[in-house]
């Protein structure tokens, strides 16, 4: 007995091919079924993260994203559809995820993460995948990741470039160690192809699957950077700052 909820025959049939993955197996699938993940937001990155986690059989997704579907979302936000233009993004996302996996439990929150709502929303999940386009949202999730000791997958893109790392409280630094200050050069609107946000979204989903199931080695204390313009990939060591204003002050 693994202590996790057993798979149904339908789940064994759906996840058969990934259960074949060495060191994952049925025990790994049961861990995913028992897990809950926050994906914020569900844009170019978060749409793909949520879709892959729904496909992989994560038991519960909490998705947070304010606003209605706009035409300019549709080049990359794969959970948004043309027929849902002008309607809430989270409704479109929930509908698409349910089409893929009707067993999935979804809590769709029509808000972006902020300092005021982050604590309550993060309490609902085991792990956070940060797909926010603005650093204040990222810092709010980071703070709760540290306070509630929940892993945080940090993924981001710009143009044809992307960055990815995994923070695990107690084992790594945090986002404020990596970027102690809100970068003044970052702007809300940025150049993006859906294939770039989708690439790093798939990688972030795999990081979440690894952390939740214990498969492989997550990108702890390392920052993966790549540029699809010339297909260069770097994996660099990153540090925990001894004077970090978040993890060194808040960690219990």
């Amino acid at each position, binding site marked *: 007995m693994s202590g996790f909820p057993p798979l149904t025959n339908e789940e064994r049939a759906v996840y058969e091919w990934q259960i074949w993955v060495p060191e994952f197996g049925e025990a790994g699938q049961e861990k995913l079924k028992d897990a809950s993940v926050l994906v914020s937001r569900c844009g170019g990155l978060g749409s793909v993260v949520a879709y892959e986690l729904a496909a992989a059989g994560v038991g519960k997704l909490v998705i947070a994203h304010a606003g209605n579907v706009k035409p300019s979302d549709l080049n990359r936000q794969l959970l948004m559809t043309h027929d849902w233009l002008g309607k809430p993004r989270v409704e479109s996302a929930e509908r698409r995820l349910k089409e893929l996996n009707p067993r999935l439990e979804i809590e769709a929150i029509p808000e972006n993460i902020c300092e005021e709502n982050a604590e309550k929303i993060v309490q609902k999940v085991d792990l956070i995948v940060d797909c926010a386009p603005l650093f204040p949202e990222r810092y709010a999730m980071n703070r709760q990741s540290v306070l509630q000791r929940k892993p945080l997958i940090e993924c981001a893109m*710009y143009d044809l470039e992307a960055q990815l790392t995994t923070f695990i409280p107690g084992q790594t630094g945090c986002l404020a160690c990596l970027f102690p200050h809100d970068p003044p050069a970052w702007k809300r609107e940025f150049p993006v192809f859906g294939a770039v946000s989708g690439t790093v979204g798939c990688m972030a989903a795999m990081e979440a699957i690894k952390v939740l199931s214990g498969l492989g080695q997550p990108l702890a204390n390392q920052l993966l950077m790549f540029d699809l313009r*010339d297909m260069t990939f770097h994996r660099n060591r990153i540090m925990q700052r001894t004077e970090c204003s978040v993890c060194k002050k808040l960690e219990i």
Partner: protein
Amino acid sequence: MKIVVEYTAQVKKAAGLSREDFQVIEGCTLQELVKQVAEKHDATLKSILFPDSEELHPSILLFVADQQVLWSESLTLQPDQVVMILSPISGG
């Protein structure tokens, strides 16, 4: 001696290229190299790296031979090392 400098994201955009070689004197420190990089390029790059003072903006990360190095550390560079100057991104 030669040092290879690589750029990412907005720093790359401001520099106008993804990597270039710098000739520096023996014993050159990381700080001296980054200041040399800022002086070589136009004002846009300098405004990202050093917006307020002679101190590198804290959101800019430095890596030497794939290891993060803080601006405050006094690191002497070795011949043919690769230095990466990274600006944070948040596209979602």
